[in-house]
């Protein structure tokens, strides 16, 4: 075992190494992507997303009498699986550094914390986009199975439905990311990602006009089903309330927080 280590000489012999440059943003994204996917816990969670999407897709395949056999109605099942599990996945991308205390390392590697948060946001959006593509593929496979069983299926996917599906997945990720950034604690933020929509869902039952402004699920559902007509103000308000505002506060908190 060699004891030799290379300390860069402040004014020593040998070729001076190139002056260090800022970490390229692409590299930050790549590292955040690796960190989001390389632990056993992350792989279990992503595996769960994959399996439960397939599991929910069995519903329209096995119950053709009660569910329209179209790409659009199948997509709703994929969206349901992603809607339940993407927020916690996204939460962990922002909170695990605090809960595992690896922020101590990360913020000494890149002290411009805003760049780290941006990289996490980018990686989470890539993850959300990838999950949406996967959901689309599973949906197509479900329809394929249904068609192979001799059933008549409507398999043409409109651009609007596809865009709504992808956007809904990204909004779910954004919701989780924002909660994670705000609360900075895995358990609290994951709990909140389930409790808050459930609570505002009850609000919709109590008062539909009020609930429609405050319920994140209602907004995401409109986006999913491409029902923007007449709902744009509510959707925008929900995005500000549940994503933009907590994310902004969370970023400020992260920038200011003493890492201990």
């Amino acid at each position, binding site marked *: 075992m060699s004891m030799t280590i290379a300390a860069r000489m402040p004014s*020593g012999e040998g070729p001076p190494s190139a002056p260090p440059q800022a970490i390229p943003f692409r590299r930050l994204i790549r590292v955040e992507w690796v960190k989001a996917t390389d632990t056993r816990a992350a792989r279990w969670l992503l595996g769960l997303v994959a399996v439960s999407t397939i599991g929910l897709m069995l519903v329209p395949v096995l119950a053709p009498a009660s569910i329209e056999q179209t790409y659009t109605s199948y997509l709703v099942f994929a969206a349901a699986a992603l809607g339940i599990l993407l927020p916690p996945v996204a939460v962990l991308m922002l909170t695990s550094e605090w809960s595992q205390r690896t922020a101590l*390392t990360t913020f000494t590697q890149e*002290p411009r914390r805003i760049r780290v948060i941006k990289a996490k946001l980018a990686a989470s959006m890539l993850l959300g986009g990838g999950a949406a593509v996967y959901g689309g593929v599973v949906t197509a496979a479900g329809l394929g199975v249904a068609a192979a069983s001799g059933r008549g299926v409507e398999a043409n996917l409109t651009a609007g439905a596809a865009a709504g599906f992808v956007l809904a997945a990204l909004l779910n990720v954004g919701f989780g990311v924002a909660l994670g950034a705000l609360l900075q604690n895995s358990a609290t933020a994951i709990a909140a990602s389930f409790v808050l929509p459930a609570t505002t869902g009850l609000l919709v039952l109590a008062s539909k006009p009020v609930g429609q402004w405050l319920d994140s699920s209602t907004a995401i559902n409109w986006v999913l089903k491409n029902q923007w007509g007449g709902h744009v103000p509510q959707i925008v308000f929900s995005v500000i309330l549940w994503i933009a505002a907590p994310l902004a506060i969370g970023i400020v908190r992260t920038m200011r927080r003493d890492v201990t």
Partner: protein
Amino acid sequence: MITTAALTKSYRQIPVVRDVSFHCEPGTITGFLGANGAGKSTTLKMIVGLTRPDRGSATIDGRPFADLPNPTRVVGTLLDAAAMHPGRTGRATLTIAARMAGVATSRVEHLLDLVGIGHAANQRVRTYSLGMRQRLGIAQALVGEPSVLILDEPANGLDPEGIAWMRTLLADFAGRGGTVLLSSHLLHEVQATADHLVVIAEGAVVASGRMDELLASSTLVVRSPDPVALAAALRVGHIDYALGPDATFTVDLSGGGITPEKVAGVARDHQVLLSELRRSDADGLEQLFFSLTAASAAHAQEVPA
């Protein structure tokens, strides 16, 4: 090179670090010594930008840490070996650090062998002992080929063989022109590893300088079979002394005017036989450390590290 200027930090109105200023030169190992809760970790975290000082500043090679474009290429840090993701393997942890630093991932294999955890590289950090985590943490600190190392209690959890290994590694690093700042609450650890010393108590620097100068005793122990005659001789020679139990005279040399030679000369002039004349350097640093920190220990323990 590390410079801190009047770093000051309070938590909930309780001062944790007070006006801490010191300087670490290339080619030296500075031991940052203090009791638990004395403010060592908070100071180190302020140097690397993890904690915002209320006042004061710190620079590495003349620049604030947060202004370093890619800090791990300049400063290797190990602040808490327990703060590693338990679900990630040693190799994956180090590979992430190598990617961030922008060094070839082949360096990962070299470092895994260097710190002696190559055999466990594919195991999750969860399964590592604290000593192995320290070794992984040191590898992570070295990954960007830095010229400065900042290590918080690096000897924690290391076995004697590991501590000896780390000393060699740090001496080699400093020998090549690197700057090392390491904290410890263990006096003998610092004494054996560092050549410069900064002692902190209750958040304030109470002593700093070269280890050999701090170690050099400022007290002379003098004994004679005839203590009465010795006392008379010292008085005539205008040498202040303190008389301890069993007729041990102690003479303060710190003013510089009094030397062992002068004391011996006074004794000779008065024909007083000396049975002992020595610097009380056996436990010099220990005495210094305890005298500086003991008074504050009770208070300091209530302050979070």
